[in-house]
């Protein structure tokens, strides 16, 4: 059925393959993503990895040089949205319904942040996701996120790369 995002695609083109082939475009087509400078480094079905480079203009505490928590909000939002998109059989837009962020420990000054997200359940209308931000491994996490995404309209393969979570 074409209105079920979990059923086989009519076009025969899987979102996952499009994402893998256009990894740099996923955040590259999002102005705010470009401004923050984060990018996706790997995509598997329902599982995404990315990096948020440290930049002076993203600092939240000028005394320490630690990156602002609000940068992680956008980074984790996009990782979750991309994981959601990659978990579906059809190419669809997703819109963030809600996002929860827990700050476990401060990021270290002047260091890049790695991120990982997974989409652990998909219904006809909603994708459920979670994500982690860390410097080295998930064992020493900086922040975690949990997000639900509404599945919206079908998306043309030509727009691929736009992992927009809006």
């Amino acid at each position, binding site marked *: 059925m074409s209105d079920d995002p979990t059923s086989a695609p009519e076009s025969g083109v899987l979102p996952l393959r499009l994402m893998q082939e256009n990894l740099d475009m996923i955040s590259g087509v999002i102005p705010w993503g470009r401004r923050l400078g984060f990018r996706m480094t790997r995509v598997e079905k329902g599982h995404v990895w990315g990096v948020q480079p440290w930049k002076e*203009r*993203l600092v939240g505490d*000028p005394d320490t040089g630690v990156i602002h928590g*609000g940068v992680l909000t956008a980074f984790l*939002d996009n990782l979750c949205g991309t994981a959601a998109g990659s978990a579906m059989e059809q190419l669809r837009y997703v819109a963030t319904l809600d996002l*929860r962020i827990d700050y476990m420990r401060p990021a270290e000054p002047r260091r890049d942040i790695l991120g990982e997200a997974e989409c652990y359940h998909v219904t006809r209308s909603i994708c459920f996701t979670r994500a982690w931000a860390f410097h080295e491994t998930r064992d020493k996490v900086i922040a975690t996120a949990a997000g639900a995404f509404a599945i919206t309209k079908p998306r043309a393969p030509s727009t691929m790369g736009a992992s927009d979570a809006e």
Partner: protein
Amino acid sequence: MPSDTPPSRADEVAAFIARTPFAQELGMHCEVMGDEMTAVLPFQDKLIGNVAIRAIHGGAIGAFLEITAMAQVFLVTEHLTRPPRPINLTIDYLRQAHAKHLYARATITKMGRRMCSVQAVAWQDEKSKPVTILMAHFMVGGD
């Protein structure tokens, strides 16, 4: 006003926004009226999250609300020497944020000795039609 007046809390909030690189990157500012405050995020193309519909990125709105909530707590807690640290936050995306100014106000739901609970609401045309709502907890003591 004499120039040797010590900075008011409102001045300190403004200074915090002015010297935080990421708040400047967002391009937000706060208008303080006594113990109340309205934050403003002027629309800029770089804030876009979805080019097709020219909607502001949810992550930019979340960051704007987080800073608004943080500034509001700082505004009313005299004992804090610096803005409070966030523990966690939940963001509800209720409507698309279009390519125009965003406004936000934060309300402290409960001020405790160590933690406080805050809600911040962002709107565009009508305050009664919120675009995004944030609920957050901050450390306000003991750190």
